């Protein structure tokens, strides 16, 4: 088995899981910067703002690694197309601009 063949799948899965993590707030952990405390999963603000980006990042990395591991046995006979690894992230980037359009249209 060649783990490198799963890299296009990893890139695509990472981007797709990340956008869902942001939109659905699937944060693996939350950081509270004012009181410098960490909490598991998505937590509401304790004191000051709560930061979920670190948690979204961890969710995406673990999720994409899991998807790549599941796909690994299939890559013996099947080579995932390389475009998966850049077309899907590019689409996700465009969707993010659309989702964040409110900042620019006020």
């Amino acid at each position, binding site marked *: 088995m060649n783990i*490198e063949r799963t890299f296009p799948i990893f890139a695509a899965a990472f981007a797709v899981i990340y956008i869902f993590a942001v939109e659905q707030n699937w944060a693996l952990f939350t950081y509270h910067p004012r009181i410098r405390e960490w909490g598991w999963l998505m937590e509401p603000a304790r004191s000051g703002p709560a930061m979920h*980006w670190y948690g979204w990042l961890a969710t995406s990395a673990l999720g994409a690694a899991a998807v790549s591991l599941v796909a690994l046995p299939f890559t013996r006979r099947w080579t995932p197309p390389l475009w998966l690894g850049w077309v899907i992230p590019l689409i996700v*980037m465009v969707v993010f601009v659309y989702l964040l359009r409110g900042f620019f249209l006020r």
Partner: protein
Amino acid sequence: MTTVLLIVHALVAVALIGGITHQAFAACWPARRKEGFFTSFRAVAGARYTNANVVLYLAAVVLGALIYPAYRLSVRTYLESARLWSYNGPFEVKEQFVTVGLGMLPLFWWVWREPLDPAKAGARAAVTAILCFIVWYSFVVGHVLNNIRGLFGQ
């Protein structure tokens, strides 16, 4: 400490912007002869930049993650109180773009692994161009936000 990290973050970004731009031009618009400045800029051996660019991208993300709490507590609060939504928005977009680029790094490393596979030339150009765009966008947004009080402060 945050100021030191911010300066190092910026210096790493400067090195990354040089490396990734060279590599993107080498992939998307290669040149064989080194006649002038611009042609020489495109005529580099792109693969030589791969490991350095991966390390620099990771370093920039780690440094950015370290200074992010300070940004969240002071800069973003200022942007919101000053109602500078059109400057807050680009940072939100930068955050998402950089993260998506992070997931593309293994593929980026693979398509540039030597000996270069001609079958991967298209993906090589596309992945490198996307990462180059992310780095340039992030650099400009970060630079403007770093100077936001000077640009818009009282």
